[in-house]
């Protein structure tokens, strides 16, 4: 890990995300490791829960506002807020301010949080200037560009740049890494047939890439794709990109044991 250690450490609050908290804590620990090695001190505000997307995307604006206000409180005062998810980071940085158009004081606080919030890969590369990591991962890896990270936050080259520095790792791109995997939060259970058609196309694309490992920066998408790959009996290991970059790529892949 290369970072400017001469400057004082940056105080970073980790937005763990509800899926990482519940299903894949190692992604959170990988994020902490990457941030600390880049010279940050990491704290985990205890009152954080969820960013509110389930309510927001279901049209429940009142609940979304209540949850957003709670997040704004929990992350007050931190220099940076970093999430190992483009979807949650995008919610904080692109959607919170618009929730408070009728409340100038809250809107100002939401905008302040929006400016301090970053997706993990973009934060490491664009803000901290990290150019390489010290990690080893043997195998051919394909990377799925999750939608919010890609289109709201411009996360595209950053993870690929860091993956390029992982010893033993070879990147084998899909034909259409930017096409949605069909997760979409509640979409995947509200419209399971459409979601299934979408993820089926995605897994075919993953298989055609010849990679033995699928990486992405959002756990929801990863769980969706892992579940489909496993149902189809395809031998592709699925991990969050942060785990591989933090040299934690030897733990059990998503949905597998050992």
């Amino acid at each position, binding site marked *: 890990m290369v970072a400017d250690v001469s400057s004082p450490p940056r105080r970073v609050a980790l937005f763990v995300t509800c899926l990482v908290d519940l299903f894949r804590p190692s992604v959170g620990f990988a994020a902490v490791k990457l941030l600390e090695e880049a010279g940050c001190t990491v704290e985990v505000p205890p009152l954080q829960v969820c960013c509110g997307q389930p309510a927001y995307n279901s049209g429940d604006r009142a609940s979304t506002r209540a949850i957003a206000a709670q997040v704004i409180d929990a992350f007050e005062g931190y220099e940076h807020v970093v999430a190992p998810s483009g979807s949650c980071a995008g919610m904080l940085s692109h959607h919170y301010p618009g929730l408070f158009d009728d409340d100038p004081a809250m809107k100002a606080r939401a905008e302040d949080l929006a400016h301090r919030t970053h997706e993990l890969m973009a934060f490491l590369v664009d803000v901290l200037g990290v150019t390489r990591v010290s990690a080893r991962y043997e195998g051919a890896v394909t990377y799925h560009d999750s939608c919010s990270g890609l*289109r709201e936050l411009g996360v595209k080259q950053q993870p690929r740049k860091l993956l390029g520095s992982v010893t033993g790792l070879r990147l084998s791109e899909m034909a259409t890494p930017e096409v949605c995997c069909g997760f979409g939060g509640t979409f995947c259970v509200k419209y399971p047939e459409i979601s299934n058609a979408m993820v089926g196309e995605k897994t075919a694309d993953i298989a055609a890439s010849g990679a033995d490992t699928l990486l992405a920066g959002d756990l929801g998408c990863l769980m969706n794709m892992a579940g489909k790959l496993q149902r189809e009996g395809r031998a592709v290991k699925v991990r969050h990109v942060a785990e591989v970059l933090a040299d934690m790529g030897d733990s059990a892949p998503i949905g597998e044991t050992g």
Partner: protein
Amino acid sequence: MQSTARDFKHNVEAALADPNLQDSLSKLKVGFSERRRQAAERLPEFEALRDRARDIKDHALAHLDFYLEEFERKVLALGGHVHWAPTAEDARRIIAELCRSVGARTIAKSKSMVSEEIGLNDHLESLGIAPVETDLGEYIIQLRHEPPSHIIAPAVHLTKDQVADTFLEHHRALGFTKRLTERNDLVAEARHVLRQKFLDADVGLTGANFLVAETGSSMLVTNEGNADLSNTLPRMHIVLASIEKVIPTLEDAAVLLRVLARSATGQESSTYTTLNTGPKRDGDLDGPAQYHVVILDNGRSSVLGTRMQDMLRCIRCGACMNHCPVYGAIGGHAYGWVYPGPIGAVLTPQLIGVEEAGNLPNASTFCGRCESVCPVRIPLPGLMRHWREREFERHLTPRAVRQGLALWSFVARRPKLYRRLTALANRLLATFGRADGRYRSLPLASGWTRFRDFPAPEPGGTFHARWARHGGSRVRP
């Protein structure tokens, strides 16, 4: 047009089980988006042009009354007529009266989505007037009695073999008894059949891509030239367009045309760009004796001045549907009305009601690919979310969803309770999923597990539990 948007879920099942449709969609997904990407790359100022296109439409919408009246003034000065149609019914009536005034038996139509919106063909047929669609795709689906499945490629849901069978069935009586299999032969046969219909038509009806206020011109792009025959040969030309098609100047049209063709088909410009400016003048070699423009509102003006106004910027290029993974999975008919894809998911609830079309704005992952390619930068996911909010406010959201959401939101607003419940869920899911690392079925999650396995949590507790256990410091799990 009769809507089946309410049966969206049923339509989806049918679409996913239709092998011909799936075959057609697999080609569409790659073709259109790749051509658009290349066209955009070849034009360095493409992104800047998108900004200008957006600004032009925003300006026109902000002064819509002014430009519509200016357009009308110019058309009248040229000797043409403008008819204002507040509703679909008004538009049908006006057009029927115009057709009757010249004793029309057949009318040649060039592609017009607005005519689909107002259900014009069925209405004219009920009056004994035969509309003939002259765009190849529209002609094919008219023979098959199907609605268009795409706004610029209406028959994109069909395979070549299906078209061959349709032509054989309908052209046999005209002496074409051989089943054709080559694309060019099919086109030639349609061309031959349609030529006589152009010559026979009493009225030509076209849509319009733009109405140009400064000149009173209607502007139309096609790749087949059928619009030009529709509007020059018959003695009456009717232009049917909706209010938001008006733009200030020809200069503006030039900007919009540059983003339109590239976004739609990846062409630098469409093969034919036609300006119709009034009826035939003395000394003109050809042209219609009468020129009428029917301008439809049909609920559009009610979004002016609201945040939903952005939907009226649409220039009907189809890029949003070409890039939409949901459209790519289910095709256009599943949306159940005239306008499919992301723009349909936004327009349809406005035009026929969110009670009828509520599924459409919900059936999106908000992946944002539509917005990223829209030539006039319509925030399509944001507008879909707006509809979801209107539904939620009006208690149209399904009860199970509302209840689930209420419960989740109650817990999410109480961090300590949330922490206890997630720790419990984590322990249960991790314990019972320990053997395989995943579930093949799971109570309350059949929507997921019907098609995919569900990953069990990794062992060791939630992140927050582990973080607290180690005194808030990093640990190697």
